[in-house]
């Protein structure tokens, strides 16, 4: 227990303070205790809790944000309903966990985080509307939110116009660098290149079949993949590239095309419900992924998706991303434990969920570095912020608002977890506008 944190106060005072948030909504006492336990861990890298009295509200909040003497309000903006709710639930859970842990530690600049949660309802105009509500009406100090590129694109002008601050958790296509967004997931080159290099070097892959759901992230990612394969991998080539509408459930035709082309690697960026159909049909068509003929390499299937697909249906496929639940570092072990205690033992944690968890922590670090909640000051303090406590290991914020992070390759197992088989030696620099890949 770090000095200055009154644990009883945390349990008794903070958690019952429900207005205007519904912080306790669905969170049991067990979860509260979990928050406390996690605070223990988190305190490892926050040597001292800061007291609100040292930071008068008038000084830390000069732009009229929702900051009081003991609280600061932030927004959570994800889809609770609609097709995207499937994916975004984990992010909401991770963000709430991080907020609880931060509060258990004493909050930010001595202020407890309260949150207002809004439902983007998988509908981009609704995201824009809610973003504006959070910024204009609720004056939230920052927003943890969005999942799809489309929702981010929809809220981006709102954040830029009202100078809000968004922490965006999803791995995405890049090609963006907003002063008002911190991208806690990987941009495309970070995620893609290391994996391709690995599969070419370790597995000797020469021919690739690119497959994706039909929207910007798979298309842009495949574009980068294609450039990398054709320009940087010796003698490797792309033998097919194909897109299916979101929600498509019949993949037998493309599976036949793949048989015809006999690629070494199927590079799959299929998302959502299509994912389930794709892997089940791939397996049923007699393509045994454990035999690695061909190798299936994906950048879109996290542990979350495997729950829907079924571990036995994707066993043997490789995924390339920055985080897997099975990482064995201490940070992650604590994180997984806390997450399961708060949300249930049957929970799994995927890449995006972990990235969402980083959001509140990164913001806390930046605010404390800036000594202010003012967006401009927080932004100025953000580049260079480090988190040694990140479940994925050490991360650092780049000038371009993306994170330096390691990229890992995991091998899917029947139990729905990945075995990490490769990890980049160094942090990979984020490069949202990659030269030579456009």
């Amino acid at each position: 227990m770090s000095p200055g944190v009154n644990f009883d106060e945390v349990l008794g005072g903070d958690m019952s303070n429900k207005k205007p948030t519904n912080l306790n909504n669905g969170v049991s006492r067990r979860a509260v205790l979990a928050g406390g336990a996690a605070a223990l861990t988190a305190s490892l890298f926050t040597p001292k809790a800061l007291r609100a009295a040292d930071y008068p509200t008038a000084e830390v909040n000069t732009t009229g944000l929702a900051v009081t003497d003991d609280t600061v309000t932030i927004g959570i903006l994800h889809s609770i309903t609609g097709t995207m709710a499937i994916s975004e639930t984990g992010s909401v859970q991770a963000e709430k966990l991080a907020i609880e842990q931060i509060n258990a530690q004493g909050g930010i600049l001595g202020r407890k985080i309260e949150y207002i949660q809004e439902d983007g309802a998988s509908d981009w105009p609704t995201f824009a509307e809610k973003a504006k509500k959070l910024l204009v009406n609720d004056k939230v100090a920052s927003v943890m939110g969005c999942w799809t590129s489309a929702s981010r694109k929809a809220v981006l002008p709102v954040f830029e116009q009202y100078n809000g601050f968004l922490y965006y958790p999803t791995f995405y296509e890049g090609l963006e660098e907003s002063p008002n967004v911190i991208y806690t997931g990987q941009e495309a080159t970070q995620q893609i290149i290391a994996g391709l290099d690995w599969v070419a070097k370790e597995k000797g892959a020469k021919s690739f079949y690119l497959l994706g759901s039909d929207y910007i992230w798979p298309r842009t990612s495949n574009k980068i993949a294609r450039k990398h394969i054709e320009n940087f991998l010796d003698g490797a080539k792309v033998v097919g590239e194909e897109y299916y509408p979101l929600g498509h459930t019949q993949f037998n035709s493309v599976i036949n095309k793949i048989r015809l082309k006999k690629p070494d690697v199927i590079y799959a960026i299929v998302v959502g419900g299509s994912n389930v159909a794709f892997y089940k049909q791939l397996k049923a068509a007699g393509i045994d992924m454990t035999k690695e003929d061909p190798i299936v390499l994906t950048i879109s299937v996290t542990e979350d998706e495997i729950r829907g697909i079924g571990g036995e249906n994707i066993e043997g496929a490789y995924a390339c991303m920055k985080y897997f639940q099975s990482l064995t570092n201490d940070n992650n072990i604590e994180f997984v434990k806390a997450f399961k205690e708060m949300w249930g033992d049957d929970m799994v944690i995927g890449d995006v969920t972990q990235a969402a968890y980083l959001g509140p922590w990164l913001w806390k670090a930046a605010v404390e570095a800036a000594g202010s909640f003012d967006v401009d000051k927080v932004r100025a303090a953000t580049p260079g912020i480090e988190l040694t406590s990140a479940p994925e290991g050490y991360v650092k914020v780049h000038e371009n608002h993306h994170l330096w992070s390691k990229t890992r390759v995991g091998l899917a197992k029947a139990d729905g977890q990945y075995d990490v088989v490769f990890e980049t030696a160094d942090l990979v620099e984020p490069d949202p506008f990659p030269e030579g890949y456009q």
Partner: protein
Amino acid sequence: METSNRFLSRSEIIGFAVLAAVIFIVLPVALDTFRLNLFGKYLTYAFVAVGLVLCWGAGGILSLGQGVFFGLGGYCMAMFLKLEASTPENTAIQSTPGIPDFMDWNQLTALPAWWQPFNSLAFALLAVVAVPVIFAFIIGVAMFTRRVGGVYFAIITQAFAAILTILIIGQQGYTGGVNGITDLRTLLGWDIRTDEAKEILYYVNGVLLFAVLFAAQYVRKSKLGRLLIAMRDQEDRVRFSGYNVANFKIFVFCLGAAFAGIGGAMFTLQVGFMSPTLVGIVPSIEMVIFCAVGGRLSILGAVYGALVVNWAKTTFSESFPELWLLGLGGLFIAVVMAFPNGLAGVYAEHVAPRIAKLFNKSAGDDMPGAAKTPAE
């Protein structure tokens, strides 16, 4: 009979005046700019709902593809705004500066030819109405001259919504794909994102809505309006009274499409982007429910329907996001089963008689077969 042929009966004048007061006085006074802008967005759906009153309520043609026309109108506007926003200075970071960002991401190196005309505001404004109308005309000619109607028409229009959505998403180099056309900033140099602009756009939207309402009222009060009702009830009789029924259906379908297109363009201006989620099946059906809640026979009811349902959606989803779908689903069922004439019907049955008693006079006549609306 004599009075019903007048453009506006006395009670209708009152109804229009009340709506005008609500839109131009009550809402702007009661709401901050943010909420007002939201209501402006809701009102853009009212354009569609008014069109549906004519098509569905009066003419019996249920289109489950109005989102197509809303989207086409909105995309036409968005294309102009996007081109204006994509100056070479703004897009200097791109490999090909001066074209919309999403084109650059998709390796397009020049503006496609069919985008070129959208550099002109006049062309774009024309296209906002013309493109949906042309689409509606083609669909209408194909369907109505073949006497496709009822549920078949509904299902086929739904298929159109599906097709257009897949096309827009699939052709992302030309359309912005699933993200839509985003980050729209100025209209002829006038920043549409400021609070002041939002308020002005709200009023423009209101004025346009009233123009559309008057147009709809004119149609309803013309012989064509009565013909639509006649067609809905006894299509054969109309045919054997010497009318080419298909032409009238095509006309009213195109009119509904034109209204929807204008609504879509205003949506783009007020919300600042356009995306395929507004084109698909779900929004199309939701637009029908706005109309049904307001009262499928009442053009003023449709406006209230769009306002009430969307306001409820925003409020509910802020407080009880998990209950929202239950509420919306229940609303659908309740309206269909218990209140087939929607708010307008409730008003006519329960409120209007009391008011009439209060003033000791008739609530006035109304559209044949229609429940009395707040206007009537």
